[in-house]
């Protein structure tokens, strides 16, 4: 395609990049240099990198997001794989994606009911003789609910990646005498990695900012970066500090993205040659 027509067609996309990516980032960067008294200062960034509170919080937030991503992946990958093998896989897939259409807050509230002292889960524990436990406001239930909410978002890209694998490749590997495990290990798994990568990207980042869940399910016991940003923007009105945390987060994430996409291309190149 000629670059001239190219530009015309992609005009809306570039407008979007300008308006909703570059300008907001610019505003955030600008805001991060504004102290709580409205003056230009480097105070925010200094506070962030010298305060043990913020650094621990950042670390914690990453650990939680990491755990959520790993658990989600461990549950979703087999599901996606089995789905591609199943009869009526499209129907199954749709049914598994369906819960995402029920609002996330509704699901959170369902869990509040399920996990409360008089809730069904405790009723079940009582019945099997474990006795009632404190479930709500624990780290475990925060992880449970977060994982629950993220599963479909991990499932879809992995499923798509496995679905796209050329069946001829599998036939070939079978013809060459590979067992189904060997086919999985040498053909399906490497080819499904692009889906895993998108899945991780789609799950990991939102997991850093599940501020609703930290409050509703975690009882504000788990503080994530998202909670800190929300607190600074909506409660403490310290937009500067909130923006600073946001900028740090964006920089870290962009770095990660550049690293992963670079590796991806390299691998593909090797595969093709």
């Amino acid at each position: 395609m000629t670059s001239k027509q190219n530009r015309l067609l992609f005009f809306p996309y570039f407008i979007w990049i300008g308006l909703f990516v570059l300008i907001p980032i610019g505003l955030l960067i600008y805001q991060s240099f504004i102290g709580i008294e409205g003056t230009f200062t480097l105070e925010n960034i200094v506070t962030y990198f010298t305060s043990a509170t913020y650094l621990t919080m950042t670390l914690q937030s990453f650990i939680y997001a990491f755990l959520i991503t790993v658990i989600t992946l461990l549950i979703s990958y087999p599901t996606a794989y089995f789905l591609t093998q199943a009869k009526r896989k499209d129907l199954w897939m749709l049914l598994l994606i369906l819960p995402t259409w029920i609002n996330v807050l509704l699901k959170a509230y369902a869990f509040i009911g399920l996990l409360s002292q008089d809730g069904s889960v405790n009723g079940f524990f009582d019945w099997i003789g474990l006795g009632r436990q404190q479930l709500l406001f624990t780290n475990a239930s925060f992880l449970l609910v977060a994982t629950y909410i993220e599963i479909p978002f991990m499932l879809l890209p992995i499923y798509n990646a496995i679905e796209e694998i050329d069946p001829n490749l599998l036939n070939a590997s079978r013809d060459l005498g590979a067992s189904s495990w060997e086919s999985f290990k040498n053909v399906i798994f490497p080819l499904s990695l692009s889906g895993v990568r998108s899945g991780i990207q789609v799950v990991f980042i939102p997991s850093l900012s599940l501020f609703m869940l930290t409050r509703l399910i975690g009882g504000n016991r788990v503080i994530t970066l998202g909670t800190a940003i929300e607190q600074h923007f909506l409660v403490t009105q310290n937009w500067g500090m909130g923006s600073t945390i946001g900028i740090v987060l964006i920089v870290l994430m962009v770095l990660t993205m550049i690293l992963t996409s670079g590796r991806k291309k390299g691998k593909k190149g090797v595969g093709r040659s």
Partner: protein
Amino acid sequence: MKKKSFSWANLYLILIFVLLYTPILYLIFYSFNAAGTMNAFTGFTGEHYQALADDTRLIRIALDTFRVALLSSLFATVIGTLGAIGIFFVKQRKTQTTLLGLNNVLLVSPDVIIGASFLLLFTIAGFRLGFFSVLFSHIAFSIPIVVLMVLPKLEEMNLNMVTAAKDLGANNWQVLKSIIIPSIKPGILAGYFMAFTYSIDDFAVTFFVTGNGFATLSVEIYSRARQGISLEINALSTILFILALGLVSGYYYVQQQQRTRRRKLTDIDPTNHQKAVSP
């Protein structure tokens, strides 16, 4: 042997299925509870549905929520698909990486940050908060998801087809219409689907950029449910669930119809043979 491993797989799927549906069925079950709480089921009642039918505010918000979701994902899909094609055909590797990076910024930003920065943007632009600020924000955060869904399909596309079509004198528009779009169609549909899901699911961004009485279900449920659970909300989730189930069944039925038709066509399609032979 094969049969057995198959049933294990099914068992696993059923387990996941049960896990994913438990909270939803729980909500639905208690929407019929006469006691008015989500703890003890004392008797069957339809009164919460009656209350819902009388609640015009909630009904209007539900309609608005779906309107925002349908429209925002449509615009996001159009812009995102064109953007993905743009990124794909950029010649310089460096520019491509930069564009991809920019594309992913919104994806990697926590939604709190997106909401906050959009609020800053609307404030500076003097833009009135309400339906359009929410719609634009939803379009904005859905675009990168669409790009992410479409790009892999473009990478898989047979570039020889494009070159061949050009050699045969096709112009860019024809190439786009007859070759590129059809081959990335599944990606486009998946992109729309994901964008719709994100829009319906969003709470944080909407929370920041809404105002003047405009609300989506998430925001409204958040403000209501904090005052204690109202089973009217449970009744609403039942209806939303049935609606989603209906849509999904319809979608599946249409897809199945198409599939059988397509299968019949490909059976007699001579190029099919060729495709299978070519490496």
